[in-house]
């Protein structure tokens, strides 16, 4: 039985234990129908031309973890940014782990989607925002049908969350193949502010396939700062679908750091539904072996006087493949748009490859849209300069690569997080240059 059939047949049983009201059941029934009709995307679809899910969906995945999974804090401590005081929402094999987490209801809600979906006090928010931002594509629909757990963050008007929030998904590998479908809902009302760090981590080499959906709503003048760390083991695959609805004068930035995993696909979609928005999309990808990272971004400018900035850097070694598919759409009423898109890549090995497709679809005339894309190598002269001054080849290359990625790192607003990512890059490049403090 293939994965699609398995998902379809287990849909009904998966819904039995859920205590949801009718409108949510309707949403889920509708979603599973969409998935049944569309199925998993194939390479024949333009958006999936360079990324094949075949190697994943031919495997058999358990949809729920049968055992009670517990892990000790000391085993996973290293995956937390522990020198930073944060709220924590931790899931183990898709199940909420209360003893590793730190949630709050003090002025803001930082808690669980399962609670939000079932408890009446959240109904008003769920009715307005849940599954409203995400388009009905097949993978998002699949997630909607099975969604029951994830992070729920609600920041009311004028509030700022007093410290960043970490969302961590651990998979224990107790099941040989596990499929997870976390669902996050983040609502920042007018003038609200929130910072979020998200990470998916498997704890051993067993295969895990995550199809995650995050919906972010940014009200007027809201600020949302989102960081994704993707540094998983070689058998972990992640499809991250993030959909963002921006209202007037809001600013949302998403930083994606992709350093590992078997296959990572980021579908990052910004819908600018208000004026004077700013959308920031940045990413650093450093991968090797047979890893595959695909960034598929969309910035849809629907209203005038907005900006968007995209900056993606990639370094590809061994047999790694990278994909960048960035799309900027400007509707005809969206005048005075400033959209910028840049994608720079370095190929380190002969077998690595990169496919880049920066697209513009412009229907308004008074706009300034530009994109640039480069594929190249490290500057031999710069390397020679450093070697002439006693810096080894490996260190010299690492310095150049770090410098290459640096302007993405510079916009990380949390110093401890920046330090952690710098350290990850240093580990990745197997050097110690003192920049990883």
């Amino acid at each position, binding site marked *: 039985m293939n994965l699609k059939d398995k998902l379809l047949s287990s849909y009904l049983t998966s819904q039995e234990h859920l205590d949801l009201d009718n409108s949510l059941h309707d949403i889920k029934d509708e979603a599973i129908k969409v998935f049944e009709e569309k199925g998993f995307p194939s390479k024949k679809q333009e958006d999936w031309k360079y990324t094949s899910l075949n190697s994943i969906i031919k495997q058999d995945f358990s949809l729920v973890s049968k055992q009670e999974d517990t892990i000790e804090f000391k085993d996973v401590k290293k995956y937390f940014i522990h020198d930073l005081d944060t709220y924590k929402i931790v899931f183990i094999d898709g199940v909420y782990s209360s003893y590793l987490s730190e949630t709050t209801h003090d002025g803001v809600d930082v808690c669980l989607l399962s609670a939000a979906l079932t408890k009446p006090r959240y109904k008003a928010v769920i009715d307005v925002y849940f599954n409203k931002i995400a388009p009905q594509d097949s993978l998002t629909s699949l997630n909607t049908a099975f969604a029951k757990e994830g992070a729920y963050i609600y920041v009311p008007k004028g509030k700022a969350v007093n410290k960043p929030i970490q969302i961590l998904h651990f998979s224990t590998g107790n099941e040989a193949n596990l499929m997870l479908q976390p669902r996050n809902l983040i609502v920042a009302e007018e003038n609200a502010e929130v910072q979020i760090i998200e990470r998916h981590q498997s704890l051993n080499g067993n295969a895990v396939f995550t199809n995650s959906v995050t919906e972010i709503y940014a009200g007027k003048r809201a600020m949302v700062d989102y960081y994704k760390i993707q540094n998983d083991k070689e058998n972990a695959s992640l499809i991250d679908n993030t959909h963002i609805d921006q209202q007037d004068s809001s600013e949302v930035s998403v930083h994606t750091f992709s350093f590992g995993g078997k296959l990572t696909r980021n579908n990052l979609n910004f819908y600018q539904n208000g004026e004077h928005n700013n959308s920031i999309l940045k990413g650093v990808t450093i991968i090797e072996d047979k890893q595959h990272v695909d960034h598929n971004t969309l910035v849809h400018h629907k209203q005038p006087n907005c900006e968007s900035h995209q900056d993606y850097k990639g370094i590809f070694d061994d047999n790694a493949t990278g994909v960048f598919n960035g799309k900027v759409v400007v509707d005809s009423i969206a005048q005075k748009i400033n959209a910028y898109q840049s994608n720079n890549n370095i190929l380190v090995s002969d077998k690595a490859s990169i496919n880049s497709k920066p697209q513009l679809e412009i229907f308004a005339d008074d*706009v300034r849209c530009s994109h640039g894309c480069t594929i190249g190598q490290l500057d031999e002269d710069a390397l020679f300069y450093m070697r002439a001054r006693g810096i080894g080849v490996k260190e010299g290359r690492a310095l150049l690569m770090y410098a290459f990625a640096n302007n993405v790192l510079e916009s990380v607003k949390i110093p401890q997080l920046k330090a952690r990512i710098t350290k990850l890059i240093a580990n990745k490049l197997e050097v110690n240059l003192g920049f990883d403090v």
Partner: protein
Amino acid sequence: MAYTEDDLEKELATKEYKYGFYTDIESETFPIGLNEDIVRAISLKKEEPEWMTNWRLEAFRHWQTMEEPEWANVHYEKPNFQSISYYSAPSKKPKFDSLDEVDPELLDTFKRLGISIDEQKKLAGVAVDIVMDSVSVATTFKKTLAEKGIIFCPISEAIKEHPELVKKYLGTVVPQKDNFYAALNSAVFSDGSFCYIPKGVKCPMELSTYFRINQANTGQFERTLVVADAGSYVSYLEGCTAPSRDENQLHAAVVELIALDDAEIKYSTVQNWYPGNAEGKGGVYNFVTKRGLCEKNAKISWTQVETGSAVTWKYPSCVLKGDNSIGEFYSIAVTNNFQQADTGTKMIHLGKNTKSTIISKGISAGNSQNSYRGLVQINNRAENARNFSQCDSLLMGNKCGAHTFPYIEAKNKSAKIEHEATTSKIGEDQIFYCNQRGIDTEKAIALIVNGFSKEVLNKLPMEFAVEAQKLLEISLEGSVG
């Protein structure tokens, strides 16, 4: 009164096609529809050898299994391939020794197009192989070319007289089964040009052909094959205008260029098929497959000025097979009213030290849609490949669209690829700057559009540059000049 972009837009919307007329030449036209018998009949009509007939039939059989592509960013009513006549030739087929013998009505047609043959003969030194509908009726300067060993003739003649060359090269760059329209063309092409430049010969003049669609309801299926043997050079010009017709006319041409070691081919096109009227009614469908193959140290350069056609679907490409080969693509695409263009190029880098340059300028006005679609592919053995791409779009008004779909695929670490694209309108500060210096808005827009396209216009041969500028002016009439 100040001339604003709104005025420009109005003028553009009401501009009529200047070359809309219809020449009544008795044509011999096949019954409409397409089947194996028609393919055989075309082949028979052209007095083709058996291998050619079979080649066509093979293409036709494959075409029947294919589906019309839908990936392009254009929307149109699909042509009914069974309601088109696949062969139309002026019924008198005299071989002329001088211009006096040519049908005066035909000559008049060319005069109205502004392409006076004798003038070109005298002034420009251009040998013109005129294709009226599907059969070449006049070939000039043949003697001069023959002295150098250059073969320049209709492809139907080449099939009869130089079968070894045609057999060797036809379909090597664009195979019969390459795509839907290439397969259709392979099955039913009626005529076109063949050009062979022998080893080490530098063609002394620009070769040119003018294509016209004349007969109502006949598709034009041209086939061009240019072979530049080792160390040779040729510059080839192609230009089109078509009469005003209400039915959509289909044009599915195939152009194959082969540049052997150290050879260079420069292929320039000015395309001005009937774009349809201001309501988007009528106009030519232009679905063209153009591709060139570069051997060692060879160079192919495509230059195109696209101002016409209701729907354009065209990607002149270079396969850089040989080491150190060079591919270039320079394009201006202007769309107005309801025109749609999806055009660009493919640069396939296979050999070492291969280089490619892409400069594409899109200008959209009215309700038109203008897309650039390009592929740069560096294969894993293409060491030190280099590509530079630049795609700029200019928008006039907010009813039109400009789109960019670049595909960049690199499989070699030594590849250096740069791609940049911008979309903007004519800057108010630019116009203000000109106004300040006493240049009125209309002239200023002309200046700016000209400057915007200059990089590409400069690449055209002299003979064409003048005509191209004229076409740009007509296409954006009221604003330019």
